[in-house]
């Protein structure tokens, strides 16, 4: 393998592309590149590379499967030694998900996160303790509502703040009545 300084850059780009093509273990419609969790690939020597990966949530259990999948793909490409490091800085944000990734999420039935939303505490309204109590959703149109990935309606409600994984919340569409996952803004 060629390791002259000029060739290294294109090799790194090639390996980054390869590692980035690995599907996310929990959302296999997305690649790691589309999810925005792959930070860099550094070629250390002819057959040794370092990969920088960042977790979505600090405790995301998928990170180990991701590392193994990246190692496998790069091994298959002839790299003998692959070490995957987890980096925390700068922290991952749902804004790192690519437009293509958002489109695929929607197609997969998951409402994508909205962009440019500051995370953190949100204004509280006293929610219903039973789902039959009157509608307490804030009045007035939200300029950027969470839309149902099935029918596109903006008329949806929160069912559960946490869902099948830490990164998702469970919602229901009030137009087509289908429940769906929403990738929470982080």
């Amino acid at each position: 393998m060629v390791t002259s300084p000029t060739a290294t850059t294109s090799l790194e780009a090639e390996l980054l592309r390869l590692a980035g093509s690995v599907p996310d273990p929990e959302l296999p419609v997305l690649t790691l590149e589309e999810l925005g969790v792959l930070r860099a690939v550094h070629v250390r020597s002819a057959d040794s590379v370092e990969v920088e990966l960042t977790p979505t949530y600090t405790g995301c259990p998928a990170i180990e499967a991701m590392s193994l999948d990246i190692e496998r793909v790069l091994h298959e490409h002839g790299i003998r030694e692959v070490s995957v490091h987890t980096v925390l800085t700068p922290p991952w944000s749902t804004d790192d998900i690519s437009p293509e990734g958002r489109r695929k999420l929607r197609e997969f039935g998951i409402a994508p996160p909205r962009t440019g939303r500051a995370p953190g505490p949100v204004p509280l309204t006293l929610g219903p303790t039973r789902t039959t109590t009157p509608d307490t959703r804030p009045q007035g149109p939200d300029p950027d509502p969470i839309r149902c990935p099935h029918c596109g309606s903006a008329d949806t409600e929160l069912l559960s703040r946490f869902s099948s994984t830490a990164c998702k919340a469970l919602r229901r569409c009030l137009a087509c009545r289908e429940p769906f996952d929403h990738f929470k803004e982080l």
Partner: protein
Amino acid sequence: MTETTKPPKAREPVPHTAAALALGDDALVLSHRLGEWAGHAPVLEEDVALANIALDLLGQARVLLSMAGDEDELAYLREERAFRNLQLVEQPNGDFAHTIARQLYFSTYQRLLYAHLAAGDGEFAGLAAKAVKEVSYHQDHAEQWTLRLGDGTDVSHERMRRACQALWRFTGEMFQPVEGLDVDWEGIRAAWLESVSAVLRRATLDVPEGPQSGAWSAGAGRQGLHTEPFGRMLAEMQHLHRSHPGASW
């Protein structure tokens, strides 16, 4: 992985190790307590919520304990007196109101502390910047439940009142300085009190009046002195690893 014996961990006792242990143990112990709810929470959504909060905390604990040494050895092979977590986080789950009160008190503290650490350039800035977003969501979750239970039925109000009261005496310890952290603790205490008081008032609950610490039973977790239920929790948490060293699946 092929090594049969590991040398004992003998990291240099630098100040940040003490801080990593304190923060890491808080996250680890509360994570374990929340995990005890799995399969027992009042509704399925809350089962999932508490497990997800536990998972966030476990992830934070793994990063922090790895800064102090071998994460598994630290979690599974230390004795009770070697843990540096707050007594608040080791308190038993009690009823759901106790779990929520504990979460409200701790998440508010953790968010304020981590926001402070994230704004600096110290050892913990990277993790804190990442975790503070997760913790804000935990705090938000605890606030929503505090409002619902406090401003709910007579029974839920009474239970929430009792829980807030019972755990109040464990809150003062949170503002004891932690070696290696350059933090304005009095500032954090004031912000914490303001935030928690505002939530309690909105939930029609009184802010507890008793001492926040100083009693014989509270205020020494950071020095390795723990309350009685902690030993039993550790026994359960460490049992598998101690019985089957190195086991994995």
